[in-house]
Structure formats: C-alpha cells, structure tokens
C-alpha cells in the first residue's frame, strides 16, 4: 500500500479487517450503503446499521479521511461514506468532508510569466484571462491537461461525461495556481470578451448543458448518488457554509472554500459565473416544481449565489491575480 494511503480510510479498513469484531461490523455496514460494488442487498432495519456504526466509533475508521490527489480515491471515499452515512442530519446536511486538511500555501511561481511580460510573446490585448490561458499553454503539464479536456469538450465532438471526467482530471493534476488563474482571472468592468472567456473556459455548454435546468433538489439527489460528487459537495458544504455560521469569512478559510468550490467542477453540481459581466456564481438549476421543499431548494441555490464567504473568497482571489498578472507585478511571493 503506497505511502499516500497511510492514515487514509484505505489503511484504516485494512487494519479493521484484521480484527474480528471490527470487520464484522464494517462488512455489515457495507451492506447498508450501496457505495461499494460488492454490497448488494440492503437490510430493512436501519437500526442495525446505526448500531454497527456506533460500534466503530472508537476505531480509526471513524476519524479516517481521504486525500485530494490520492490513488484509488474512489475506494477511500466509499469506505468513508460507509462509516459516515448513518449519521447524516437529514438529506440536505452531509456532515463533515471526507477530505483531509491540506497545507495550501506553498510558495509558487508562474514560469514563463517573465517571457510574457517582456512582450516577446506578443500580447495584443491586456485581457488577464487570455494572459492566464497563455501562461497555461506555456506550462507543459497545464497545456497538456487543458488540451485533453478541450478536445472532448469542443463543439461537434462533445461527450458530456468524458468532458466532465477530463475536467476533474485537470483540476486534480494541474498546480492549483494555474487552475485558479484560469477560473478566477480578473476582468475590467464591462470587458465582455474577458468575462466570456472566463465563463466558458471550462466548456459549460458541453460539461453541463442547461437547456432545461433540473430542479435543484433533483440535481442534489443525482449528486448524492455519485460517490465523488457527494464527497465534493460535502467538502463544499463544510468549508463554504457550515464552517462559519456567524459568517465571519476569516483568513485561510477563504482559500479552503475556493479549493472546495473548484472540487465541484466536473460533477453534476458544476457551478459557473452567472454572466460574462458578473463575478457572481450559481449552479445551473431551478426551483420550479419544488412543492413544499421550496426553502430547501432555495438554500441549495443560495449556498452558491448568496454565499458571502464564497463571494468574498472569489473577489479576494481576483484581486490577488490582478496584482500577480498585471505588468507591474512584484517577484513571486507565497500567497497567504
């Protein structure tokens, strides 16, 4: 078992299976939640599932997590949700995030930025979104991963599922600051071309066509059926909504919220800017036909379009990149 998965749920499960009482509870729990391929039937009595879960409370399984870029992430997430599903606070509160806290602010630098600034690669329009696209093209890995999703998302060859998958690969493998430069590049007020590039750079017309938008509750249910989407949604809920009930939006929490926001891109709950000229974001769904669950539906919409911390995080990130990408930018600084 590779080093990445020590301390993750994969490791915790291996230890558990070596212990008789632990493995009986865990294997029973696996039948409660059809996340693992092997689980077929579902016990009628949910009570036994809760008892089995409670027996594992002091086991390392109930505090294990997964890592963003680990190998066989799906297995790890399946184990996490097998343990955590009994404890939900109702359908619309997913509890904690399966992803382990990550140290974020490693100092980074755009290579070739000097090349761009020296003007040797002629830059006709100073539009910073085009500039961040160029920076990605000049970086081998970013260019390769961007072309990979670009091809399966482009017009006349769009394959929505493959497009979503390649988008996820892009965000999981490219260095964060390149992905964020593309996603949160600042545009001058009224610069429609820049805003249009920013809004289409992740091929929404292919990845999440919103011809007749789903009801948000249906979209939520679809996401919960998918292991990865459920995990990214729980991460977003935890780091962009629950972590700050008094809505203070303080310090590093902003950056972690952006990481969670980016984690949703490429799932059915892919958010995007609402227009070329706005930095407000929303997920593509409507609340028509919600019946008595209009409040829950509106809550899903508001967690993207009326989320003060998310809005502040995006604005802060744009100011940062404005400073980093504009001509007179100081030498590389680690980003707090």
């Amino acid at each position, binding site marked *: 078992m590779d080093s990445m998965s020590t301390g993750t749920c994969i490791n915790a499960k291996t230890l558990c299976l070596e212990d008789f009482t632990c493995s009986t509870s865990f294997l029973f729990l696996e039948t409660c939640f059809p996340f693992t391929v092997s689980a077929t039937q579902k016990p009628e009595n*949910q*009570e036994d599932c*809760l008892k089995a*879960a409670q027996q594992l*409370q002091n086991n390392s399984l*109930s*505090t294990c*997590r997964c890592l963003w870029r680990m190998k066989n992430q799906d297995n790890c997430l399946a184990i996490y949700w097998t*343990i*955590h599903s*009994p*404890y*939900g*606070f*109702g*359908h*619309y*509160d997913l*509890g*904690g995030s399966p992803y382990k*806290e990550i140290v974020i602010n490693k100092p980074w630098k755009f290579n070739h930025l000097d090349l761009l600034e020296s003007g040797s690669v002629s830059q006709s329009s100073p539009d910073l979104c085009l500039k961040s696209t160029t920076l990605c093209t000049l970086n081998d890995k970013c260019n390769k991963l961007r072309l990979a999703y670009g091809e399966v998302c482009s017009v*006349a060859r769009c394959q929505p599922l493959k497009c979503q998958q390649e988008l996820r690969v892009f965000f999981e493998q490219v260095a964060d600051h390149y992905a964020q430069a593309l996603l949160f590049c600042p545009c001058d007020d009224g610069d429609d071309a820049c805003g249009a590039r920013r809004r289409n750079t992740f091929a929404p017309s292919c990845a999440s066509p919103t011809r007749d938008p789903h*009801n948000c*509750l*249906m979209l939520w249910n679809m996401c919960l059926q998918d292991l990865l989407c459920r995990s990214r949604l729980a991460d977003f809920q*935890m780091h962009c909504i*629950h*972590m*700050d*009930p*008094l*809505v203070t939006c303080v310090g590093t929490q902003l950056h972690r919220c952006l990481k969670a926001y980016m984690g949703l891109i490429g799932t059915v709950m892919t958010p995007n800017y609402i227009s070329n000229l706005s930095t407000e974001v929303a997920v593509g769904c409507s609340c*028509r*036909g*919600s*019946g*008595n*669950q*209009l*409040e829950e539906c509106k809550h899903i919409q508001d967690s993207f379009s009326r989320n003060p911390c998310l809005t502040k995080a995006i604005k802060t990130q744009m100011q940062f990149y404005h400073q980093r990408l504009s001509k007179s930018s100081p030498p590389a600084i680690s980003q707090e």
Partner: protein
Amino acid sequence: LYFSRDTYSEKLYIDEPVGTPLLYVHALQDARGEVPHFRLGQHLYSTYRSQPHKNDWFQINEDTGLLYLNQSLDQRALEKLSARNGGFPLLTIYLQVFLSPKPLRESDCHWPSCAKVMLSVINTTMPACSSLKPREFCFLETGLSFRIRENKPPGTFHQFRLLPVQHLCPNISISYQLLGEEALPFYSDKDTMEVNMRHSLDREEKEKYELIAKCTVWEGLREEVVMVPFPVTVYDEDDSPPNFPNGINTANAVVEYKRKEGTVLAVLQVFDADVVPSSVDIPRKYIHTMLTSDPLVNEFFRVEHSPNETSYNSNGSRVRAMMHDYKLVLNRSLPITESHSFQLGVLVNDTDYQGPGGVLHLYFNVTILPVSIRFPNISYSFSVNRNAHRYAQIGKVCIENCKEFHGVNITYKLQSLSVNCTALGIITTPESTTGNLFVNDTSMLQRPECTGMKYLVIASDRQSKKQSRTTSTISVEGNFFPEEEGCPISCAVNKRRSECEECGGLGTLMGTCQWRQGDGKGISKNYSTCTPSLKTCPDGNCDAVESRDLHICPQDCIRGDIIGGHERGEWRGIKAGYGVCNCFPEKKKCFCEPDDDKEPLCDEVCR
C-alpha cells in the same frame, strides 16, 4: 405536531452558569388538542457527525420546550469536544430535538418531527453587559425563518427574547414587534414577547410573508432600534381539487395529412391551485387513464401528461400553482385509408386530494379523415439539355398537398411511353413526399433522333397500395458537344473558376460545372466551390439524388475527412468552409483553404 423551524440557533459562551436558559423550541398543532412533548437526542455532534459525544451539558423542559444548560461548559470540556472534530476548531455544537412521543431513530433528524439546534461556540466567557452592542441584545446574525402549515390550528411559533444574554443582563429594557402586524394574521405579545397566529392560514391566499421584526433597546435615556427580516413560509396541503382553466374540458382533434407517430393532435389543460405533490411525486400521484376498450384507439393514440409550475396573483403577491397539459398524440402512423370518428374520454385523478372533485374527465372528439393520393389534374412538362450529365435533376413531381403529408409512405415510379428515347429515372424524397426526376442514361440524350420523351408517373402509397397517375413530357434541347478531355467526374474536384467552368461532372444540367464565389470572410457558409448545380448544391442538404453517388455533391454529403478551416454539418457535409472547398470523392476527403495558397514555391528541396 410539527416544529415551527427546521433549525434553531443560539450563541454559547464558556463557563455560563448552570441553568442558563438558551432558547425555546416551538411546536404547532396538526389537529386541536395535540400536546407536544419535547425530547433531546442523547448525543451532541460537531462537524463530523460520526463522532457523536454523550450529551452531559444540555437539557430541555419536556413541556415548555425550554433548552437550558444542565452543566456549565468549561475550557476542559470544550477541548474534549474539539478533539473529536477532525482537527478543526470547534465552532458549532449540534443537538437534535424530537417531537413525536415514540422516539425517532436519532440519526434520522429532519423536519417536521425533528429539529436541529446549532449552538455557535465562542471560546471566551460571556462579556460584561455594558460591552455588548444593542444589536447583540436583539437578534442573532444567523437570521430567522418560520414554517407554518396551512389549514392547521393557530398557535405560538416564536419568542423573541435572546435568553442567555437577557438572563445575564436582566436590567436591559427591550421590546419587540412585527411591523404592520395589525393587518397581519400574526401578532406579538408585549409581555411574553411571543409571536402568535391570529387564525389558521390558507396558502392559496398567500404563501410567503416577508415581515420585518423591530427591536427597541433602552439604555438609560438612549434608545436604539434594530430591524431584521422575519420571513414566514406557508406549507401547502393538497386541499384544492383540480379544475379546468376557463371551463374547457373538451377539444376537437382532426387527423388528416399529419399521420406520423408523435404528432400532437390536441391539448387540454387542468389547473391545480396546490403545489403538492411536487414535480418529483406527480407521476405517481397524478394518474390519467384513457377510457376506451377499442383496440384501434389504444393502438394508434396515447395521452401525454406534462405538469408545469405556474403562479397566479392573489391580492398583491404571487402564489405558485400547477398547470397540467394533457396532449392527445398519435402513437403510430395512421394508414391513409383509415376513416373514423369517436369521442375519447380521459380520466384524471389527483390521488393526493382527499375531498370530492379529485377526479376529472377530459374529452377528445377525434375525427380521422381518409386521405387520397391524387395528382393535380395537370400533366408535367420539363426540358433537358443534351449535354446534361447523369443525375442532373430535371424537375419535381408532387401529388396534391404533398407538403402537408407526414408519416405517409409515398413512392413514385416512371413508365416510359416513348420507344426510341428513355433517359430519365425518379427518386422519392421521403420527408417532402416529392418525386425527383433525374437523368439516368446520358447515351440516349446524345442520339440525334432522341428529340423528346413521354412518361407515365405513378405515385402509390406503400401500405394501402392506392395509386394515382399522370403524364410527363420531356423536350430535349441543345446540341451535343464532346467534353474537354481529362475532366474529373466530380465538379467538386476543381479548385479554380477556370478549371470548373471548362469541365462537366455528375449532376450538371448543361454539361458544365458552375462556380460559386464565396464571401471570403473566415470560415463561412458561403465558401467558394465548384458545383454541378447552384440550385441544389451546396445547400446543406444531401438530397435523395445527391446521396446516390458521392461524386454528385460531396460538399453536402461527405462524411469523411475535411482538411483545413471548416465546420462540419450536423450529420454530414460541409456546413462552413474557409476560402475554397474542393473534394476528392474517391478518397472521401475534402480540403478548404484560401485560393492564394498555391502549391508552395519550389523550395530549396528541389536542388
């Protein structure tokens, strides 16, 4: 019984004394006489629900719903709880309050019979009263929102006082009220500071009350006012029977030329003032059945139900409702001989609605008219040039109303009435039920003795074998001139006007290809190309004749590679091209590039 909120919240400082009241939960009755008993979940939770902790600190009064501190929460206790929070600082403690007498499973907490309590933990002791700002005496930042079921008995659903802060600072004088409450179905009691309903509510009259709560705090002579939103959502009950908007429950449906499966013949609407069942549950709850035992009707007709949320105006505010469309649709293509009229009844049942009138009847008066295959009483005459190449499209024949027909399988045939000269063929275009006459044998045209042709044109419906005939006379014009030697068989191969107009190709009417000069603006639909006939190619449609042979119009029919700046047609062909598009049908390949791109000069390779 149901909670008036799905989440209650309050602030929690460290070392607040035992017995400190935290908040009241409120339950409203579904039926008079119901008495609520509140029970607290055994565990309290942090961010990670899988790490519940035994609840030693909080208690609830079973009858009044008052949540209070049973044991003071000190620094050590806080650290113990934080240890189980996955490494995050403990910001929130979650509790669960149950209503129903029989204990629900603890992990299954959701409205209406279980409410979440969110205590925002502040890692300091309670600040002195004097240091608190007026706002902190009045309201919390987490905001208020309430749920009241329509048609249920009125009751108390909120009390304004922030219990902990007013318990520790009793001499603060404070008052609350709802703005404009005189005209509202709610009122606030000055003494108990509770908010009550004057009477039960009707969602179909108003479903959202966007109220404002006003708090006034006096500190000595200074008076401070704080206002916050106080939204109340009225929850729906299926208490309105479905009805016919403007009373129409009958529609006529005539089937004539449009006999294709999927054709919508008529639509009837049913209005329902309720929004439950929601669009997810409607397929299960809103049932419709065709009241017929006639196998023909069941085989050839179906009813499609599509519910859409709508809204109407009710004294100044919008109220959501549902509009159900019932479409009568052809389930299979109807034979042209079929002739029949009947009334089809459809029963619509809102199974969720318990009262009378939950079942409605729709009626479709259906008339199926037979349709005849008949040529207009004219005989067709066309002309063809002796130099026309094979597949030149000479003209179209069409039975009466052919443009109207859908789902009817008409085919056209030719029978030659002239002995020494028969050069034409005919192909049917299914969508527009027309017959395309084209040159099929050019050798005949080149014989001097062949000066004209006469044909019998027969249109027949494959299913009913019904037929109609007419005659078509063709005059042969022009003198034959042998073609330029070495010309390609497809006009599309040529890349320049000169090459194009000196050659013929399959599909040419006069023996010479025609050059289309494009607008030369980037990748454009109007690209330059060489075509057998500007009328039919390229027009974005690989028609019945062109699809016979790729050499005729590869621009519209190519499925293979298109090299250079282009946009592919949705199924086939070149939708847009850059500069000149020319094709090599035998290689199934087309090129689009500006004409100035002559072959590169003989670069140094030649030395």
